[in-house]
């Protein structure tokens, strides 16, 4: 199933899609596949698979630490994409890989999109790719059937929002809070306003992420979005768990709570 089908199925069910994020290769490649699968059992509709990067400008301390640990455990770019492929195979649910511009350009735009396509990846998210530089990424992805996700922030102007929509992303990633990834108390008032602005421009799916740490915040986001990304709150459980089995148990419990929060009625 693609992201579009997942969003449609969730909407038909009067809920938003739950799209948890975990770091590929944490605590090790095989175990990280099992952790994604645990979230799949808990009700995830698709996944954001973090490819570890040494200089993650958009990420807070928890995901920085997760990336450093995954790199320390020997996770390569190919290894991270391998995790995405196995998650896709094991769960049948769509995967977006989350990375930064430099690993993509170092590999080569076409080569990277080819690797992503071979791994069955549905979409690529690069946290430092603004719409202004996105056209070659979108074109290279389209040639291999891989979508690109673009961001809208609380500060994004109407003109920029229109450019984001026109660039043809798989979905619009609404940054729910100013700042880097992390856990915050609620969802900004801005979310509802952004939702209305995006809806007025396009039928493209809108997904909120960044700072959504609790089922309560996720429920607020779910009322105005097609999907909700939860990352740090889950990654922290993996980092703090004594072993992979405990991490999986923790994710099943937390994942079920977030998945339940996706219901709008």
């Amino acid at each position: 199933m693609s992201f579009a089908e997942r969003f449609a199925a969730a909407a038909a069910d009067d809920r938003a899609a739950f799209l948890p994020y975990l770091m590929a290769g944490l605590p090790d490649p095989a175990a990280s596949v099992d952790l994604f699968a645990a979230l799949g059992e808990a009700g995830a509709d698709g996944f954001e698979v973090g490819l570890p990067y040494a200089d993650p400008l958009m990420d807070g301390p928890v995901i920085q630490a997760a990336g450093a640990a995954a790199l320390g455990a020997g996770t390569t770019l190919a290894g991270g994409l391998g995790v995405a492929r196995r998650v896709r195979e094991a769960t049948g649910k769509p995967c977006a890989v989350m990375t930064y511009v430099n690993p993509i350009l170092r590999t080569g735009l076409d080569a990277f999109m080819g690797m992503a396509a071979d791994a069955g990846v549905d979409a690529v998210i690069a946290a430092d790719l603004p719409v202004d530089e996105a056209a070659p990424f979108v074109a290279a992805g389209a040639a291999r059937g891989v979508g690109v996700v673009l961001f809208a922030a609380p500060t994004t102007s109407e003109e920029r929002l229109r450019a984001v929509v026109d660039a043809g992303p798989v979905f619009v990633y609404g940054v729910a809070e100013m700042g880097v990834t992390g856990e915050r108390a609620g969802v900004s008032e801005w979310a509802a306003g952004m939702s209305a602005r995006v809806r007025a421009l396009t039928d493209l799916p809108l997904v909120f992420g960044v700072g959504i740490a609790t089922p309560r915040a996720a429920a607020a986001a779910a009322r105005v979005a097609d999907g909700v990304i939860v990352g740090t709150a889950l990654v922290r459980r993996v980092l703090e768990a004594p072993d992979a089995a405990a991490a999986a148990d923790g994710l099943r419990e937390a994942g079920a709570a977030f998945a339940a929060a996706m219901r709008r009625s």
Partner: protein
Amino acid sequence: MTLERPDERGRFGGYGGRFAPETLMPALAELEQAFDEARGDPSFTAELAALQRDYCGRPTPLYEAARLSEALGMTVLLKREDLLHTGAHKINNTIGQGLLARRMGKPRLIAETGAGQHGVATATAAALFGMECAVYMGAVDIERQALNVDRMRLLGAEVIPVTTGAGTLKDAVSAAMRDWVATVERTHYIIGSVVGPHPFPWMVREFQRVIGDETIAQLDGRHVDVVAACVGGGSNAMGMFTAFAGTGPELVGVEAGGHGLETGEHGASLVAGSPGVLHGAMTYLLQDDDGQVREAHSVSAGLDYPGVGPEHAYFRDAGIARYVAVSDREALDGLDLLARTEGIIPALEPAHVIAWLARERESLAGTTVVVTLSGRGDKDVEQVSRMRGSG
């Protein structure tokens, strides 16, 4: 030829641009517009010029170093940025950006720092303009530059240790950018070199080009064969090169060779790196096959950076300047040479340039060379003594 300003995407040739989280994009556009307006506003440029003269101590001398020249068999002219207030060229940029931040109504300044010179210069500007200040500094650098940490605190700045990565300049830049992503509405990020997303490389160059413009005026038509400067991010070099590009002299940027290029432990991104994106700009950087940015190494905290300003990347590819690398050990010898022949203790960063002159004394024999002496060496005395003692 040198570009008066980058194109509308912020590119110098294929380098530069704006690879930044969407959250920052509106702020970068706002900053570009504010800088463009300020530089054309006579009241802004007059206030900046007055502060440069009365507060910073400009113009700095262009000093003919007679005993060094005699020792090396060439004529060496030192542009004495080490004599500026706070002891380095960094103040040129922080006073300019501080004025701009005040004009934009931002009450808080943040900065990253490696050697601490830029942090001190930012803390100084914050005190001068009555602003809050936070400086991100790698934990390793806090240890090796304790004097500058104390100076920043005396100036009222908060020094925030960065423990991620290797705890050096690269990580401090990333940490400062993360702060800015979250606080951009009331904070201005004074980036310390000609790096980062557009408009920073262009704006910092414009605030530093006073170095080269003054030098040209002070030369008063005197012939120069070579203009040389150290390159970490490359702001003092670009401040000098911008004035000289296309006028005749050979432009040479000296990067940190660290333990030697062959060891992989260095900061020579132009000499030994490859193109990629770091801290918001397309440029040369040190990276592995997966595009993971490698840690740099240099005895000099100010050159300990795995990227470089994008305009230098353009200069390199276009052949406008050439770039060389000098090792830690050579740099220490360069520091000794200038100290003993001229009674000037340079910072370890420009000591790399003195060392390059010494290495190239045969090929440079009889020439006239202008060197940016970008900072004074007080901050490095303890470290140099320690290394000499152990070495």
